[in-house]
């Protein structure tokens, strides 16, 4: 009897200690909306950073689940989240059918990463055909003559190449396979572009994080990750030869150069794919990540709060985007986007922006 009483007391105190601090008594905080979003893991680092900064500024809570682009699209279609995020843009007819508005939020680069003894970050040079052949399984060891040709100064070991790709469907995969599709006819015929594809060789890992871990784990591994993951995990990235024939490193400048030529205005739903862009400085595997919201918003206050957040990210999020090695959307583009909001987003017939 005494023991049960003690046990009940301990459990009660423990539960109270966990629950009570969470109760906020401020009326202001109780009235704050909490916006939920889900989707691509590609922009997850920057979205969570922006959400954190914005919450510190305004107290508004943001919940972003990095479940993948396909998951984001499915959830926004099912109306379980306020906005969805996808690296693979939806085409205009798909947008119309689902009643969604699509706009670009951030631009980033996908980077091939390797784990080969004796190769430092930024040393290995890869041409488009080399990259495609490696991922097609045509080149099986690192000391293959074709790789040696592109890298005459490096001493390449005889290690087997282990390709690491994504096991889950992913917008990062979409951007990467889109690039390979453009530069290799064999890839175009055999594999194609998709969030998930029939990879000819390699092992699959879950998420950008999984690919990073697996490449670091396996000697001779090569994979592709979003640039922020490559930096955070201090991985060995490679140089890629772009359309102009120059070997460029993945940096903010090269991502920006790739995005500079894009014609956002003419593309319906901002359907612009930034891979294999012309320009001496362009990084070949650049991609934009998009936000999807419903044209018809159910809750006016929530929708306005959400749009205010996106506007803040466009105007004031440039610095943190730069810190995390993403490229912010240029001003002329987000002005267009906000005009779209004004013209197309409605809640019960009322305009939501400005």
């Amino acid at each position, binding site marked *: 009897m005494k023991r049960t009483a003690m046990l009940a007391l301990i459990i009660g105190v423990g539960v109270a200690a966990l629950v009570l601090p969470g109760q906020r008594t401020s009326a202001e905080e109780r009235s704050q909306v909490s916006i939920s979003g889900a989707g691509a893991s590609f922009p997850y680092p920057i979205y969570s950073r922006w959400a954190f900064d914005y919450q510190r500024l305004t107290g508004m809570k943001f919940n972003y689940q990095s*479940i*993948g*682009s*396909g*998951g984001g*699209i*499915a959830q926004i279609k099912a109306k379980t989240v306020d906005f969805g995020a996808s690296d693979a843009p939806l085409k205009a007819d798909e947008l119309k059918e689902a009643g969604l508005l699509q706009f670009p939020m951030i631009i980033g680069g996908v980077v091939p990463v390797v784990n080969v003894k004796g190769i430092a970050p930024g040393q290995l040079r890869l041409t488009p055909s080399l990259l495609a052949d490696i991922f097609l399984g045509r080149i099986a060891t690192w000391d293959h003559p074709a790789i040696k040709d592109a890298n005459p100064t490096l001493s390449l070991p005889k290690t*087997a190449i*282990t390709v690491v790709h994504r*096991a*889950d*469907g*992913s917008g990062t995969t979409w951007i990467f396979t889109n690039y390979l599709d453009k530069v290799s006819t064999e890839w175009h015929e055999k*594999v*194609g*572009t*998709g*969030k*998930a*594809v*029939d*990879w000819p*060789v*390699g*092992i*699959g*890992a*879950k998420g950008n994080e999984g690919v990073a*871990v*697996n490449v670091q*784990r*396996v000697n*001779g591994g090569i994979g592709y990750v979003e640039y922020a993951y490559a930096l955070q995990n201090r991985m060995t990235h490679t140089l890629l030869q772009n359309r102009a024939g120059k070997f460029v490193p993945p940096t903010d400048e090269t991502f920006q150069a790739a995005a500079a030529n894009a014609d956002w205005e003419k593309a319906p739903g901002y359907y612009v794919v930034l891979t294999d862009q012309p320009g001496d400085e362009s990084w070949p595997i650049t991609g934009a990540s998009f936000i999807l919201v419903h044209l018809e918003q159910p809750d006016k206050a929530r929708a306005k709060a959400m749009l205010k957040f996106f506007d803040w990210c466009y105007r004031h999020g440039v610095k943190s985007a730069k810190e995390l090695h993403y490229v912010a959307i240029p001003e002329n583009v987000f002005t267009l986007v906000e005009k779209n909001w004004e013209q197309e987003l409605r809640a019960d017939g009322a305009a939501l922006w400005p």
Partner: protein
Amino acid sequence: MRTRPRRQPKADTFFKYLSAGCAFVLLALIAGLFIELLRGSSQSLAKFGARFITSGAWDPVRQDFGAASSIFGTVVSTAIAMLLAVPVSLVIALLLVELAHPVISRIVGTAIELLAAIPSIIYGMWGLFVFAPFMADYVQPVLGTKLGFLPLFQGPPMGIGMLTAGIILALMVLPFMCAAMRDSLAMVPAVVKESAYGMGSTTWEATRRVSLRYCIAGMVGAVFLGLGRALGETMAVTFVIGNSHSISASLFAPGNSIASTLANEFAEASEPMYASALIELGLLLFVLTFIFQAAARIWLRSVGLTERAKG
């Protein structure tokens, strides 16, 4: 004098119907699951038919799917796990019940139950960060050089692959089976064992001919438990199996199991045919588990090892 039959008290009748109701709910749940799986996979069943089971394709771009690599991976990883775990858990259970000092038996027994309680994702993470490198650096190179003439042990030692997944699965089901086996061995009445010893049998003879035969039903049940868990295990396998939709003779090669494919790809399957193919994979796993269990029971009955055939 005519005697009236005693009417059952109301409480008994109520309890009878309540328990019958609960049992019925369970059956209804299984039936409902099966029907939902059938419905969800109707598109894929209509398009692929029987070809789905034999086709090794998995092309989300061209929407061509086949379950062969997933079924192969599930069966092989489960087989490796069972081959490793069943003998070892039997030996451990025997040790704990028959041979060890009671204190050691209690300590080790508790440790095994704690192992059984570890979430599977922890096994997966441990497998990826600790065990896979160990396999890649120490075990697989040795197997490759010594036994490399067998197609089973060819290929680059990546650490991740079918063998590692099978071993981790074995480590996961071992505590379950061991605990269940130990419990059933412990239920053998002391009087039965002592009568064997009284007749002059050695420890092994008493164990084999008396204890094991007495609780064979419990042992079989423990193996089924482990088998069911191994067939459906998801997170631990996903981390270390390599997630590649290919069939390879080598144990070093990556593969995939039905559960790992579902875990990886279901959330992103935006096309209806893709989702339908994945649900059909789930249906196949359901059917596979059912077939395994039914076949095992039929075989056991034919060999005479069921509950009815005690002693």
